[in-house]
């Protein structure tokens, strides 16, 4: 699974992209955030307040309860501010 991080999520984690294989018990976006938060101080910082972090699975916006099993690309980022 490719993990992508943008804006301050990227800055806190310290990298923009990583390739990981989450354990089988990681089923949802929320599970994935819990698991990622355990991987480094930067990850923990980025996911400290999950209400501030949005997610996209295979380039489609999703809620925290969305399934990530079988996903190729999961992205985490703050609320968007384009336009």
């Amino acid at each position, binding site marked *: 699974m490719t993990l992508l991080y943008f804006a301050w999520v990227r800055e806190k984690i310290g990298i923009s992209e990583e390739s990981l294989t989450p354990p089988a018990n990681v089923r949802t976006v929320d599970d994935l955030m819990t698991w990622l938060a355990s991987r480094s101080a930067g990850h923990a910082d980025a996911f400290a307040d999950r209400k501030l972090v949005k997610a996209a699975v295979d*380039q489609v916006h999703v809620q925290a309860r969305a399934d990530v099993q079988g996903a190729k690309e999961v992205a985490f980022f703050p609320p968007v501010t384009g336009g």
Partner: protein
Amino acid sequence: MPGHTGNVRVQEAPFDPGAEINGFLARNPNSGGIASFIGQMRDFRGTDRSGGEKVSAMTLEHYPGMAEKQFEALIADARQRWALDDALLIHRHGKLHPSEAIVLVATASAHRADALSACEFLIDWLKTQAPFWKKEVSSGGAAWVAAQSTDEARAKRW
């Protein structure tokens, strides 16, 4: 069929809003009404509004691939709701300078109500759905721009 090529562009290079609108008019000679919205980086250098630091530059981070996909999806949605002849979305990324255009939305229809509503719908939804993040550089340093709850509320109206 018009309107199915070149409807979405995400680019680092500056673009010329007037030239883009003229090109859009030229490719839609049968559309009576063309609505557009241009978002430009405000020039805070000379006129420091309502306190705060003067913003000298801006960086727009984006999610390549998803940005284009999201724009295509928004246009497809607008086409379902209104009688559109054509739509165009251009969005910058990377480093921007004051008074440069950030985004252009243009819509063409035989009916002005459709062109106007679709244009407003596209910019409203783009503000809450398009994966772009603004970082402002001022004399006080660089800071990510916070999302506005009013944007979320405006998009939900549709």
